[in-house]
């Protein structure tokens, strides 16, 4: 399967568009998951990526992060004029795309601190480890503890902190509230709010659509791998019809 590689920037990219997906198609093996998605993200905004289970939200994020699966078969991804679609995952991360995966993926057999140090091995670092400990005192307390023995909320904190340790141009948050008790969800919400306040451009995938919409500027809805709605987050929050149709809420 070939990726359509075009190194020229398309003409219709607007001046302040920071990040675009242009008609991307992706497969998990034979399974056609992302079926032609085009969207754009402006600098500093938070975009909610919503849809039912299996709509292709996580797959879209993984494709943006250039993981091996799903495989991008055609389409282009541009970040600030850089062609992301030709990159491998490590190159995308060095270019500023940081993924906080759905299952957190804290590396077993390594301490909290080692997980953070690992994030800073490759170039284009973000926050220093001291800065991270300042903002996440709980992680500082547990710095020498094995990462996978942290509670769910703490692991989520660590996963976000790991991303912050790198230079972020586009943050991809995949289900940051999943599996967390409501009290913990609030904590993570505060962290994401902090990210928003720092103007970090973010795409957030979240089952808890209401929480996501409250935080976001704009939202897109996926259904069976295709984009079915783009619009203002606040509007979507009001629009019962749409919500019922695509989000079942």
């Amino acid at each position: 399967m070939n990726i359509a590689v075009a190194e020229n920037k398309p003409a219709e990219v607007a001046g302040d568009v920071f990040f675009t997906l242009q008609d991307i198609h992706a497969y998990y093996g034979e399974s056609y998951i992302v079926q032609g998605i085009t969207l754009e993200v402006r600098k500093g905004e938070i975009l909610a990526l919503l849809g039912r289970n299996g709509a292709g939200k996580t797959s879209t994020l993984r494709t943006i992060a250039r993981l091996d699966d799903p495989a991008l078969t055609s389409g282009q991804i541009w970040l600030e004029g850089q062609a992301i679609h030709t990159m491998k995952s490590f190159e995308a991360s060095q270019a500023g795309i940081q993924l906080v995966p759905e299952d957190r993926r804290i590396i077993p057999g390594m301490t909290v601190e080692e997980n953070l140090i690992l994030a800073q091995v490759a170039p284009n670092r973000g926050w220093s480890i001291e800065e991270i400990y300042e903002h996440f005192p709980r992680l500082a307390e547990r710095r020498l503890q094995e990462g996978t023995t942290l509670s769910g909320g703490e692991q989520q904190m660590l996963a976000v902190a790991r991303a912050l340790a790198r230079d972020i141009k586009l943050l991809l948050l995949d289900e940051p509230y999943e599996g967390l008790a409501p009290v913990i969800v609030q904590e993570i919400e505060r962290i994401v709010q902090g990210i928003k306040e720092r103007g970090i451009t973010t795409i957030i995938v979240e089952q808890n659509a209401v929480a996501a919409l409250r935080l976001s500027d704009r939202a897109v809805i996926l259904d069976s791998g295709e984009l079915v709605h783009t619009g203002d987050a606040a509007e979507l929050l009001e629009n019962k019809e749409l919500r019922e149709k695509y989000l079942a809420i």
Partner: protein
Amino acid sequence: MDAILAQLLNGLDKGGAYALIALGLTLVFGTLGVVNFAHGALFMLGCFCAVVFRYLLTIETVTIDPEQLSPWGAPVELRTPLVQDWLGDWGAFLVDYSVPLSVLFAVPVMLVIGIVMERGLIKHFYKRSHAEQILVTFGLAIVLQEIVKSFFGANPMPQPIPSDLRSAADVGAWFGMEAHTLTYPTWRLVYLLFSLGVIGAVFAFMRYTTFGMVVRAGMADRETVGVLGIDIDRRFTIIFGIAAVVAGVAGAMYTPLLAPNYQIGMDFLVLSFVVVVVGGMGSLPGAVVAGFLLGILQSFASMNEITSIIPGIDQVIIYLVAIVILLVRPRGLMGRSGVMES
């Protein structure tokens, strides 16, 4: 009691060799996901590093003495190693200690061989199926064997133990036992210590260096390491080189115990896979533990008390254990769940 202790020592020194080879194999499988059937050949090449090193050290000047005739009428040749000519007693010492010194020679040589193997061949097969990897690496092993055979011939080339270390050490006496109740060849004890040292060095490297940390992370979760911006493929070359060095020095030091020939790699290859299967395919500590365990099992199984009940058990016991493990706990003693279980 002494009999049991003696067999234990024997098991440990064999186990040291098994553990070293399995260690390299696991490093390659655990990080690169490559099943490397050329690993035994790396052990063999290490043995021949010792052979070559000694050969270089013992390049001789030959003078013919026309006065003296051998009993069948040919003139007698006087051979003196060049090294001895130049360095006198020091030279003789170097020649005597050629095997342990050859480790210093083997490290860079094996590193280069490993890097060339990886860059030249292995890296093209990372994403291919295990079956293809096996075919290619096995083919490489055969090619390497044949190259060695064409240079060195088919006869085993035993290497000598340094003369001070040729006797048996009175191990029993160290522990307060009566003299001469528990003796064991000194060189085998040296080998055991050497293998523990190398194992320790590898683990220290993995634990205390950044590179080692990246390798550990890569072994645990390759995808996430990429997400964090690290190009693990590039580090694979070094890892392969390290695995080659570990296998190679294990071979070099083993040459006085088992005269190397071009086939020695194949004998150890099967064994190393058995060890890795038992220990767990992705687990470094597993490889070490399984290596020693199987060495000890094999040694005890050859005790007369046991072979009189089940003759031949010593030949098959490690394979039996491997079969049991594959049936009951396919991930091995310490492997990560999911590896090998599909």
